[in-house]
Each structure stands twice: as structure tokens, then as C-alpha cells.
């Protein structure tokens, strides 16, 4: 269940939909598609987890797919639910060096660097 929740979180826009009751219908996602999404999200799904995840994600997709029925030919796509434009800030340096405080939260640091498991190039 945890991994399913992660995938759903990754799809932030529709994350809350999983709690909605959606009537059962044929699943619209394939196992391959879910596998692809899992790799992109760096999640490892066991074989016995797929059926459940495919079914739940399909419900979300199907639910959102209902929007496809709306006529949108002459509608300018919105980029944001708020119908406003971006406020800008002046080009000033307002941040001090707080490295030591921020690095208290890091599991591993050395010589000012954050350390992560070795990335093989």
C-alpha cells in the first residue's frame, strides 16, 4: 500500500482522488505502463503488487478522463487555477549563508558537501 501511495503522490494533481469511490470498470492502464511509471518514480513493485496498483491508478485515470468529454475547442488552456499573473522580486541577495544549520538535517556531510550514495557515471 505504501508504494501505491507514493505513486499516487507522484501524480500530485490527482492524488486525493484515490479516496473517492469509483465504480469498478475495466482497467485502462496496462501493467507495462505502470511498470514504466514505477521506474520513472524510482519505485520497485513486486509482481504480486501490480494487480492492485494497476487497478487503482486506472480508476484515477478514468475519473480524470471524464474531463475529455468537455468541449474545449475555443478555450485557452489555463496554466494555473488562479487567474493571476506572477509577481516578480527584485534582483537582491537576501539569503545569508546558513549552511551549518541546513546541514544538521542531512544524514551525511563532509567538507561542506552533502554526501549521497555514489552515483556511477
Amino acid at each position, binding site marked *: 500500500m505504501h508504494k501505491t501511495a507514493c505513486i499516487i503522490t507522484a501524480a500530485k494533481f490527482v492524488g486525493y482522488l484515490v479516496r473517492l469511490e469509483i465504480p469498478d470498470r475495466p482497467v485502462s492502464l496496462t501493467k507495462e505502463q505502470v511498470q514504466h511509471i514505477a521506474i520513472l518514480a524510482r519505485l520497485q513493485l513486486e509482481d504480486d503488487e501490480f494487480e492492485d496498483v494497476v487497478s487503482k491508478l486506472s480508476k484515477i485515470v478514468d475519473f480524470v478522463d471524464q474531463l475529455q468529454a468537455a468541449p474545449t475547442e475555443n478555450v485557452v488552456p489555463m496554466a494555473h487555477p488562479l487567474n493571476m499573473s506572477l509577481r*516578480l*522580486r*527584485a534582483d537582491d541577495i537576501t*539569503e545569508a549563508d546558513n549552511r551549518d544549520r541546513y546541514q544538521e538535517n542531512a544524514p551525511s556531510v563532509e567538507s561542506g*558537501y*552533502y554526501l549521497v550514495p555514489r*552515483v556511477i557515471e
Partner: protein
Amino acid sequence: MSRWEVVIGLEIHTQLATNSKIFSGSSTAYGAEPNAQASLVDLGYPGVLPVLNVEVVRMAAMFGLAVNATVAKRSIFARKNYFYPDLPKGYQISQYELPIVVGGELFIRDDAGDEKRIRITRAHLEEDAGKSVHDEFEGSTGVDLNRAGTPLLEIVSEPDLRSAKEAVAYMRKIHSIVRYLEISDGNMQEGSFRCDANVSVRQVGQVELGTRAEVKNLNSFRFVEKAINFEIARQIDVIEDGGVVVQETRLYDSDKDETRSMRSKEEANDYRYFPDPDLLPVEIEDSFVEEVRRSLPELPHVKCARFIAEYALKEADAEILTVSRALADFYEEVAKTTAGDSRIAANWIIGDLSALLNRDNIDIQDSPITPIALAGLLDRITDDTISGKIAKEVFDGMSTGEGSADEIIAAKGLQQITDVSALDAIVAAIIDANPAQVADYRAGKEKLLGFFVGQVMKETGGKANPGQVNQLIKQKLS
């Protein structure tokens, strides 16, 4: 004539020269202690929000206007999702469907020397990632996020380039423009200006494009040329051997002068772009664009045309002198100060001064010889105080801080001998000392004139006026 045609498009990443980052108030200064300039926004802490820097918008608009592009009234920031340790949020904020600069063009010289128009598809704003250090920590990778959030303008060309040389010419032009606009320092060693090249080949006459490979992270003009040439040869080999070029990302290894595949077992790029809900659309008023337009400096091609008209320069010389604003300003100050020929001023700057600066790796702004000082030297050539040859000696003295042209000429007694009687005596002595050559000359061996002139110049330490010496000798031997 090769039966292969090369097709290249470039994506140039230019760091914008702001004080603070694109979405946070951290400094963008280069060379700080690791992570000393990484704020909560740059580190991707939960709950923080990006706020766009107005300077970044202004700089992008400047670039757009400078290349005849449209500055979009409305543009959108999108998330480009991928995982890498130097990208702590798990996505890069970039622009996708609606970039801030659309369309555009600039002109380069093609391999035949003719003017060629290169179309610019778009330019979009994005944040840079941090830096990973792979070899300094046992079993770990170190991450420095100082660069994370540095503003980048990614400039994408149409696949209009047909050779590695054209690609370099285009890249130099963009480099020149961003530095004229002062929107980027263009420092390639520090990574402020780098490019990815999309390269493909096709048979001459074929309409559809060949499969392309993307060569990543080229950070010098020389590497761009070498990497592209390697890639062209590699692709032609693959096809001529009956193979197929694979669409992939390749990395140029400058030590081995080759590109190699970065293909990993992972899925092909799938960035799942979507509009960033943390950022509203950027809307730009016409008045803002007009203000930016009024602030544009004279651009390289305009300055070049003006130099040709105003200073009677050859086109090639004017192009060299207008590559950077600093060099053009230097030239113009010399040309305006000297009483001499503005073309000779150009020759000295393109020749001796550039050689000196290259040798010592000095920027024109830090030239040991100021424009006023160089003009002073040119004036002494113009008024015949010294010959061009002696001027080089004076120039060397000026470059090592021996003083102004006049001071050096006076101190070393370098002024030309214009006193005809003094010169006359020297010429007479040379003629007396070389009877055999005199006889040969009089018998028709006129090439010996050079011998006599050389002897006189030697005797006077180069301080005689060669034209005057020539005349004197001819008179005496006729």
C-alpha cells in the same frame, strides 16, 4: 564533393549575470565554499515557494529583441521531472510549451564566406542544477548546490547549420551577443556558456532528416568543432558499414577526442513536463518590452557596419574588432584619438596588440597599453618621427612599462634621421666601402639596391626613413 550532408542544431545554455538566483535570494557568485550559497529554496525543502527574479525576465527580453524574436506576452514555467542528486526537488523548473522568447534569427558566414541566416526556434528560462563530485569521497558522491537555481537562458536553434565550422560561427555569434547585452559573462571555463549539439547526416538530396545524436556539455568552441566532426565521421561510418544511427545522448571526451554513448539501462527520456503549480504565468506588458528595447546597446552587426562606414575598415577587420564590446570600445577610442589613419590603428590592434594580449593571456580591458598610449605611438608614425619598424620596438617598450611613445623615443634616441646631410654622409661612406657592388649595380644588377638600403639601415640602427634612403642611393649611383 561528399555525398553526405550534415545537419546540426545547437542548444546553448547561457548563465544569466544576475546577482541572485532565478527563484531565491541566494548569491550566484562563482567560487564560494560548497553549499554556502544554497538556501532552503535551492535545497528543495518542503513548504518553500519559488519567486521569480525580475532581472531574469528583463535579460531574456533583451536577448529576444536582439535576435529579432518575439518576447512572449505570456509564458509558463513547467516542471521537468527526473532524479539526480544535484537536483534536490526531483524536477527542474524550466519552460516547455510556452517559452519566453519565440522565433528569431541571426546571420553567420558559411564555409564559403557568404552570409547565411540561422533561425532560432526559441529561448526559454530555467534553473541550473548543482554539481556532483564523484572522486573525492570514499564510496560517496559529494553534492554542491551553490549552482542550483542559477538562472539559465537556453537558446535553441533550428537545424540550419551544415558543418562544425558553421556551428562554431553561430555559437560565437550568440556568445558575442550575450556579452554585448551584458546578460552573461560568457565564461566558458566556469560553465557560464555551454552547448549541446544535435548532429545527424543524410545523403545529399534526401529530404527527411537522418537520426540524430545529441552530444552533451561542450564548453569550448574548439571542443564543439572537434566533437561535431568526430560525430559526423562516426555516423557516416556507421551508415556506410550498413548500420543504423541510434538516437541517443553522447558525451565528448576531449582527452581521447571522441564521443561515446551515455546510454543507460533506464528508460528513454520521459520528463513528464507539466505546468509548475508553484508559479503563475509570466505576463509581460508591452511597455516593459519597449523599455527594454530602448535600453539595448548597439549590437555587433550594427557596430560592424558603422565601423566599415565611419573608419573605412575592411569588413574582415571590422568583424574582428566588433566581436566584443570591450575590444570595439578600445579600437574606437584609439581611432578617435589618433591623428593617423584609422585603418593603421586597426592593424596594430588586430596584429601586435592582440598577439601581446594572447601571449600573456590578458583581457583587452587590462591591456598594458591604453588606447590613448597606442594613439600616441600611431601619431609618431604618422608624423614620420619613427618608421613602422622602429614603432614595433617602441611598442615593446610600452608593453613593459617603459613609458609613453614619446618618452621611449626620446630616451632611446629613436627618431628618424631626417637631416639630409647626415644621411648623405652615411650613404656616401657605404658606397665607398663597397666598390664591387657599386660596379655590379651600374652594370645593371638593380636588385643590389636592396643591399645598399640594408647597409644604410644597419648603419643608422633602423632610424633612417627607408623611402628617403632609397632615393638618395638611386641619385648617387645613377
